């Protein structure tokens, strides 16, 4: 067999030009497949890493996915809120270690604004229980302090001391309908996390109340501009409602009973969700698109394999003479068969290998950029088992597909005998 392998190798070298083109086709298809696969794995991990350390998220009754989307991903809107007394009641439960209220609804130049307390920076965790770190500055000390995420700072070019004005609702800086009479000042910038936190402006709950003084009807009262900052600082700024609560338990074991207790709360109806379960549910929504993408890249590999078939089949006629020479010097039809199967296998192997090298070269160069820009970490996608499986699978598939031309040559070599009429 090693004699046939060396023949196959020399035969491929002899047809370098077309063989390299075929290898490139296979390499590109494998690189695309692995690229999709790694982006998918990275996205899924990044997605699952968005929130950790929080045992329950509590909000007004809505869909599980909806509550997760607006409280964690800052997507969509809450249809109802949680009243402040209810928050206090839940925070006081004996089985609860901490509860952090959050309040959403305003924005700054397209970035969501999150009203919360400083404990948020202690308890909100992402990835493998990583805490939020301040890249510079400090937390929310004054009423009109703002701590911004890394993307907000980078995209808007903000640093410590930058002034910013919130807009009511989610539109982009539509002046006149905003809170421009209550400017904030950036006092802290968070380090990048690869989560929606990067795209969030954090202010205190009291600030949210303060900027809405004069908005009690849902629209801005023209008289609100006559209320000065000093007057506002004198008000009781305790919020009437918050959007949701992040909750940590004293003992993880009580998660289901605590959840049931909150869900069946007497008085104000509430809903508690377990973040990891909700994340899994949300991911399953995207699984369809993910599978479609996967299917497409598998077909691309199939196209790459077909190009091996084409190149060998098209060379078969001009190699008919070669086959009869091999037969004349003692090669059995089985040798002719394995020669062509091995050629296909070698092309598949080197094509897949080249594809793996290409995708890792691309990831090495583009990975850090992608991570910084989109928060999709591709760090965990170094050479691994997926690559090995792909290499083995593509090589086996190439060997299998090589049996088609090999079978043709096998039958011909039986029929042709020693002499081929050319």
């Amino acid at each position, binding site marked *: 067999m090693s*004699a046939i392998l060396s*023949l196959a190798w*020399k*035969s491929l*070298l*002899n*047809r370098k030009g077309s063989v390299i083109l075929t290898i490139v086709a296979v390499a590109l298809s494998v690189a695309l497949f692995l690229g999709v696969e790694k982006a998918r794995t990275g996205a899924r991990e990044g997605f699952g890493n968005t929130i950790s350390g929080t045992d329950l998220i509590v909000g007004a009754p809505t869909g599980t996915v909806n509550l997760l989307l607006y409280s964690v991903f800052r997507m969509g809107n809450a249809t109802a809120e949680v009243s402040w007394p209810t928050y206090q009641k839940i925070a006081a439960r004996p089985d609860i270690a901490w509860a952090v209220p959050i309040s959403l609804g305003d924005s700054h130049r397209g970035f969501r604004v999150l009203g919360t307390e400083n404990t948020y920076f202690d308890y909100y965790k992402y990835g493998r229980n990583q805490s939020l770190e301040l890249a510079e500055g400090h937390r929310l000390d004054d009423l009109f302090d703002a701590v911004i995420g890394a993307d907000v700072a980078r995209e808007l070019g903000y640093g410590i001391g930058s002034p910013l004005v919130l807009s009511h609702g989610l539109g982009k800086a539509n002046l006149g309908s905003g809170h421009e009479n209550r400017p904030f000042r950036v006092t802290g910038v968070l380090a990048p996390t690869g989560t929606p936190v990067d795209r969030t402006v954090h202010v205190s709950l009291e600030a949210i109340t303060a900027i809405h003084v004069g908005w009690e009807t849902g629209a801005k009262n023209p008289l609100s501009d006559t209320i000065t900052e000093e007057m506002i600082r004198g008000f009781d700024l305790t919020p009437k409602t918050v959007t949701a609560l992040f909750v940590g338990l004293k003992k993880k074991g009580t998660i289901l009973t605590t959840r049931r207790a909150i869900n069946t709360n007497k008085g104000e109806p509430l809903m508690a969700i377990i973040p990891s379960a909700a994340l899994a549910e949300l991911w399953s929504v995207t699984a369809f698109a993910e599978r479609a993408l996967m299917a497409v890249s598998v077909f691309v590999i199939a196209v790459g394999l077909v190009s091996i078939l084409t190149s060998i089949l098209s060379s078969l006629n001009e190699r008919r*003479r*070669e086959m009869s*020479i*091999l*037969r*004349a*010097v*003692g*090669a*059995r*039809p089985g*040798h002719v068969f394995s020669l062509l199967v091995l050629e296909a296998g070698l092309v598949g192997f080197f094509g897949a290998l080249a594809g793996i090298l290409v995708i890792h070269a691309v990831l090495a160069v583009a990975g850090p950029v992608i991570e910084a820009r989109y928060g999709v970490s591709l760090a965990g996608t170094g050479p691994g088992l997926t690559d090995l499986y792909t290499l083995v699978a593509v090589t086996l598939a190439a060997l299998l597909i090589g049996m088609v031309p090999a079978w043709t040559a096998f039958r011909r070599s039986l029929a042709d*005998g*020693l*002499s081929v009429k*050319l």
Partner: protein
Amino acid sequence: MTVPAIEIEGLRFAWGKHAPVLDIPSFHLARGERLFLRGPSGSGKSTLLGIIAGVLGASAGSVRVLGEDMTALSGAARDRMRADHLGVIFQMFNLVPYLSVTGNVTLPLKFSAIRRRAVGSDPEAEAGRLLARLGLTDPALLARRVSDLSVGQQQRVAAARALIGAPEIVIADEPTSAVDADARDRFIELLSEETARTGAALLFVSHDVSLARLFDRAVDLAEINRAGVSA
């Protein structure tokens, strides 16, 4: 008395249900004999050579190669007989294009342990010696791609390949038809010398009767084949 190299009795061969192309009551080739077989194209000589080489199976009769009845052997066993005991030279396009000159000459050794043993520990040196005897000594020439060699040179490389490992029978199927007259006589001379040295029987097939004088014995295929295929 040793067994003849080739001994055919009552051989009949037909493609499918067509009329037989071969019907040879008797044909033999002694060990070490140099036989000229005259066979114009269409006389069934390719079929006959295919049967002797074990690539084709006979319809009836016996074809003994070195005493082995090829008609009684399996396809794989016939392949092994050919690999071990036969050297074949074709009319043209004898060489595998992606192998070097030496690689082409040593190719049969990859398929036959017997011929590998006969050559000894250094097949490349043996290939070089055979090529040198056939007049191919220029190292630059041996380094060229086989497709860049002249037809005469290619035929000598093919002869070296047929002779390596000292097979008992060398079959040459019109090996000189694409070579000019001088080179042709010289080629046959060299081939005869080398088969004489290794003791191989030579079955030389050609339509050109004028070559018959260079051999021990001459046979006309049309005379021994009763199937009477039109020329």
